[in-house]
């Protein structure tokens, strides 16, 4: 296996008006890894995802996908077609449609040639069923996606990403609002998704979950990468404890 860089962010600057959110940020993610991104509120985690998906334009620096492709001048549609899939913080599924139709749309969207093809091939149907099994929703496929439970919507959205066979999956708070059983299932799902040809980025506040699913953790603070390493190392770093875990611990004890 040759490890290539799935994402290469170089000297990225993003500001809204006079307020700089990302400051000269440089960061890489390799294929085959599951990367966690943590950091206090306002550190720039969501802005980083927005820049990676074309939702927010960056002022300077650049982002390269799969080693060579710069996304600077691409629209979010073109970036998605490069194989970057994103799950939003708020579960975003097509509520008026069934689970099957949600997956079908994502599958068609991922293969521009079959987008309006009248009937699905049997291979494509099979793929929808495989994916639904992977996300644990095979018995809920005919249900209206709007009536699914919060956790199921999150899984459906992840399913919509993986069915398009992406190179990079960006998950914004995949376990927010989930109970411990659902968190466990999500962790299992992520370990099933990972593979040599895919990079998974998990932005999450839940430390335990990040430690469980991620190989390496990046701590963002004030628009910069503060430290990067395995969860154990990161958690022991005095700086991190000071800016992030300290606050977390303080707020956790006050609950």
């Amino acid at each position, binding site marked *: 296996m040759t490890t290539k860089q799935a994402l290469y962010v170089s000297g990225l600057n993003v500001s809204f008006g006079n307020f700089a959110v990302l400051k000269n940020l440089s960061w890489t993610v390799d294929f085959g890894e599951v990367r966690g991104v943590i950091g206090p509120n306002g550190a720039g985690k969501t802005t980083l995802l927005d820049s990676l998906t074309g939702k927010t334009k960056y002022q300077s620096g650049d982002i390269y996908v799969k080693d060579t492709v710069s996304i600077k001048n691409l629209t979010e549609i073109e970036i*998605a077609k490069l194989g970057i899939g994103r799950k939003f913080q708020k579960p975003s599924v097509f509520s008026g449609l069934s689970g099957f139709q949600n997956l079908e749309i994502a599958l068609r969207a991922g293969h*521009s040639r079959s987008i309006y093809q009248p009937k699905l091939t049997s291979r494509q149907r099979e793929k929808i069923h495989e994916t639904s099994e992977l996300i644990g929703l095979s018995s809920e496929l005919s249900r209206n996606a709007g009536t699914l439970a919060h956790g199921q919507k999150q899984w459906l959205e992840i399913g919509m990403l993986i069915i398009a066979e992406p190179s990079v999956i960006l998950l914004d708070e995949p376990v927010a609002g989930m109970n411990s059983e659902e968190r466990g299932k999500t962790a299992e799902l992520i370990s099933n998704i990972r593979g040599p040809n895919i990079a998974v980025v998990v932005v999450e506040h839940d430390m335990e979950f990040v430690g469980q699913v991620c190989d390496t953790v990046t701590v963002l603070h004030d628009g910069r990468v503060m430290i990067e390493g395995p969860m154990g190392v990161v958690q022991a770093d005095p700086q991190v404890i000071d800016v992030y875990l300290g606050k977390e611990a303080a707020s956790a004890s006050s609950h």
Partner: protein
Amino acid sequence: MFQASEKAGILLALCGLLLIGATSLGFSTSQYAMNLIGQIAAFALLALSLDLLWGFCGILSLGHGLFFAIGGYLVAMHLVKVTFDATGTPPDFMLFMGWDSLPFYYFQLDSIAYLIVAIAAVTTVVSFVFGYVSFRSRVTGVYFAIITQALVYMVMLYMFRNDSGFGGNNGMTGFKEIFGMPASGSTTAAFLCGGSLATLGLCLYGCKKLVDSPIGQFMLAVREDESRLRFLGVNTVHIKLIAWCISAILAAMAGFLYVPQVGIVNPTILSPELSIEIAAWVALGGRGSLLGPILGAVVISGLKFILTGLAPDLWPFILATLIICVVIWSPNGLADTSSHVASFYRRLGSLTSIKGRSQP
């Protein structure tokens, strides 16, 4: 509901064809009734066109009267041209301007085939250009609705001008013959009514096929969450343009059917009131159901025909009350009424069974 719309489409088309067949065999009908039904069928088609766009793709247009008018004005130009060719005198509105022949854009309009091509072409070009510019700039929701309203208003102001060659504020009327038939008479009315019903039925059937197709699924996905679809790599501008242009063509067809039946076209069909009324038909009937808006158009325009005669001053109040009632009790429109009735009976049933149990 959905399977019902296919059946209803076929049934309407058969009714229309049957009417045409019976009339050509000499069966006579009431001219008033035929005229009324035919006009309502044209309105129903107009409602269907907006429903396809608003109910299935989530795009509200408050300017659909524009496309209705494109169909209506072009067919009126055809009728003016035919009358001119027969009598050799231009219509009054042109005589007042001192014109002794028709302006160049009436060229060839006496041919029905050319007329149909012209309607399709003008509607497609206008809707495509306007839609492409708006959708590409991501104008959505109320902003899009307001722009469409402004567009229809702008065109209305232009059409009020007497030097435009389209009849100005008086409009175009006084047609001598309609598609080779005398301009008035019960046979003509029956043919036009049958044609309108058949067209409505076929369009309903076609819309059902469209919303069930992959394009229809993508339209629903745009309605539910357009940005999610974009981040899946789909250029939603294409899907919105398809829905917008098809809807515009349906509205133009409605105008094409409507004007010969009323025998006049004038800028009032471009007034914002008509465009808003179309939205009221759809909202009242039920967005996102194909049969609902047809029902809405039939109920409201039927009531309007009756009540504007009986109590013209009261009509706006009656319409407003009707809309408020539907919004309060049946937010999904009349199409949802059947489920309301069912749930009412369920509640009634459970109520009586509770009473029955508490008796002993």
